[in-house]
């Protein structure tokens, strides 16, 4: 529909998988699963819930009549109660037992934790996709010298592949954070209205043990390591802040990458992929703009501006809960996941199609390298019988002149020609040129790339497969 607002994250940017994760169907499907887990556990603990109730719930986990829900919601002005009734309509035997003893936060909060955990899994997969693309890139260009930049000024050489490992390592660190957060993320569990479990103590006629078991059983069914030991009505919003900070970390890593690509494209050294019919500029037809990297920068700034929001929400939750978290979380949590999903998709796409322009790189190296080779040039002069202090002064004088010439329009850096023409320096041009072979200036960059891929990236991919295949074997 074009006559009402719709979110660009849904319309343009995020993946189908991430959109489905945050969809009403997934969320309310989880609510029904949580009601099923509660009923199953209550029954195992002796509440007389008939088989038919459990079976009807099981059979209708994903058959949600959203029209019926909307009608109930209009009547009750309460989303959870609307869903309880709509579920009860299709599972009549379960109707008397759905949501027994629970407060709304039982389904809303626990579902949010499940959704965030699955969101982290999806983002982790996306980050691995980027790493796969960059692995190929880093491997291919590991020996290609290129100007390094510090302070945004030309500095000693590195290699194109080595620079890619800097982007990769950031993502590896993000993945390690995801793994940690995901592993320890607790469940809100079964806690009741103010978190005291009073309603459940009532249900089990004062049997504290059964109440504790209920909390643990539901937590186990939903595959969480443990319930939070204590809660108010909701789980502490600190958990949101922790999770979203990891998400924002991914966005920041991608933003750093996008900044590098945008500048490299400006220098002409590298370009992000450009489709054959893509239009760079409506006015300047020849232009190729780094629009995908710019979009990463744009979305990442959005994500990073939301990160602090989660801590602020936590800070203003008063006593056992206030509702001023609700509308805010409804926006912030999905949007951070959706935007970061879009960011990583873009980063994958760029990484798969990065173009490297070696001629431009060589030209830019040639313009700067003679200035960086002072030490090597001095050594050549001294070996030919020169004086170190005299050679240094000669180089200093000619460097300043060559730099001035370039600023005044000279095409190339002619420092070596000037030195070769200066008899006091005493080294032939051929020998001087040998001193500035770029491969002599890249240190261990190619080896570092190989080591990084071998020691960090390969095990990460292997661990990923093993992790999926043998999740429960990691116990020992």
């Amino acid at each position, binding site marked *: 529909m074009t006559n009402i607002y719709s979110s660009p994250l849904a319309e343009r940017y995020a993946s189908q998988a991430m959109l489905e994760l945050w969809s009403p169907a997934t969320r309310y499907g989880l609510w029904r*699963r949580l009601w*099923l*887990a509660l009923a*199953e556990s209550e029954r*195992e*603990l*002796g509440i007389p819930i008939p088989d038919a109730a459990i079976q009807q719930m*099981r059979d209708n*986990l994903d058959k949600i009549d959203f029209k019926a829900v909307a009608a109930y919601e209009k009547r009750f002005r309460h989303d959870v109660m609307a869903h309880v009734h709509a579920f009860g309509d299709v599972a009549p035997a379960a109707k008397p037992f759905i949501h027994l003893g629970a407060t709304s936060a039982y389904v809303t909060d626990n579902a949010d934790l499940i959704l965030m955990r699955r969101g982290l899994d999806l983002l982790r997969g996306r980050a691995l996709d980027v790493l796969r693309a960059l692995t190929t890139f880093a491997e291919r260009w590991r020996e290609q010298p290129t100007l390094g930049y510090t302070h945004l000024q030309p500095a000693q050489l590195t290699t194109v592949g080595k620079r890619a490992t800097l982007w990769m390592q950031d993502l590896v660190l993000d993945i390690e954070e995801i793994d940690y957060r995901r*592993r*320890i993320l*607790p469940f809100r569990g079964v806690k009741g209205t103010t978190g005291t479990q009073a309603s459940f103590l009532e249900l089990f006629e004062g049997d504290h*043990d059964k109440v*504790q*078991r209920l909390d*643990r059983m539901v937590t*186990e*069914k*939903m*595959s969480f*390591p*443990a319930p939070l030991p204590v809660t108010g009505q909701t789980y502490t919003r600190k958990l949101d802040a922790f999770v979203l900070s990891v998400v924002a970390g991914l966005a920041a890593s991608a933003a750093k990458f996008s900044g590098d690509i945008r500048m490299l494209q400006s220098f002409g050294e590298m370009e992000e992929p450009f489709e054959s019919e893509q239009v760079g500029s409506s006015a300047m037809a020849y232009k190729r703009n780094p629009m995908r990297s710019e979009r990463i920068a744009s979305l990442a700034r959005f994500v990073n501006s939301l990160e602090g929001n989660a801590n602020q929400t936590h800070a203003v939750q008063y006593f056992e809960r206030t509702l001023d978290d609700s509308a805010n979380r409804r926006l912030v949590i999905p949007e951070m996941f959706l935007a970061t999903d879009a960011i990583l998709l873009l980063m994958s796409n760029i990484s798969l199609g990065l173009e490297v322009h070696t001629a431009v790189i060589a030209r830019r190296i040639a313009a700067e390298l003679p200035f960086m080779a002072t030490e090597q040039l001095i050594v050549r002069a001294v070996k030919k019988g020169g004086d170190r202090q005299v050679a240094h002064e000669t180089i200093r004088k000619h460097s300043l002149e060559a730099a001035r010439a370039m600023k005044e329009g000279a095409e190339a850096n002619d420092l070596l020609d000037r030195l070769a023409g200066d008899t006091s320096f005493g080294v032939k041009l051929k020998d001087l040129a040998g001193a500035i072979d770029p491969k002599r200036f890249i240190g261990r960059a190619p080896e570092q790339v190989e080591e990084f891929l071998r*020691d*960090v990236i390969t*095990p*990460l991919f*292997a*661990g990923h497969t*093993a*992790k999926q295949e*043998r*999740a*429960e*074997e*990691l*116990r*020992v």
Partner: protein
Amino acid sequence: MKESALPLEPFRRGKVRDVYIVDDERLLLVATDRVSAFDVVMSEAVPHKGAVLTQITAWWLTTLAPRIDHHMLSADASEIVREVPQLRGREKEIAGRAMLCRRATVFPIECVVRGYLSGSAWLEYRQHGTLAGEPLPKGLRESDRLDPPLFSPSSKADVGHDENITISRMRSVVGERWASKLENLSREIYQTARGIAAERGIIVADTKFEFGRATDSDGTEKVILVDEVLTPDSSRFWAADSHEPGHAPPSFDKQPLRDYLASEKRAARWDGNYPPPPLPPEVIDATSKRYLEIYSRLTGHPLNTDGAL
């Protein structure tokens, strides 16, 4: 049986075992038949699994007894009922699965011994060439035998999975004296058990021990072995003939269950989350048989399942 409900004060409930307080000196450990795979708890119980876990522990403790002090007082239901009269009439619920134990102050460390490179140890080694931060020889393959076995303690995390820790970290948690005692005991028990199991065609790839401190009537304090011992749940068991370096052998106990769940996933009938698919009786039966087989392979005789619930 998935949940025990005995007329005793509950002490702690784990993923599989329920612990009750009998009195100041004694606890009752009850292993249920709950089972999980791919991080999801199954709706069905695996018959006899709890009894297998308890009786394997009992068998090991009896076998190792001359060498090691332990917490077991009895794993025999009628004897337990004589000792704990509150359990009269509940024999069927506890048959095979309950163990009456001496209370001890448990060290907050899981003493893991690895005789083969597998699981999280293999992942760490492949990533960093280390185990618990200590370098290992280069060029090891998955499932390679480690000689001597490696001691790699882990912390008992309140939330989440246990974390591997370094031995020096363990020293600062339990103190120098106890740390070396626990390490030596763990290695010694594992080495002995590895040999005994190998004679019966079972490889104990790795295992996890827990120890506690207990004071004897004469006032001397000693370290005793507690918790479950060398069971399929606390160890990684492989059939000797399925072991091949470079590969992860099938799990002795849960493979039928895992194969079934994997096929349900492939057929898109299960998304890997709660609720798990209902298990067909033949899968439950096959898994149960695997547990019983481990028991009979180890001990040389079948588990007595008479009278059990």
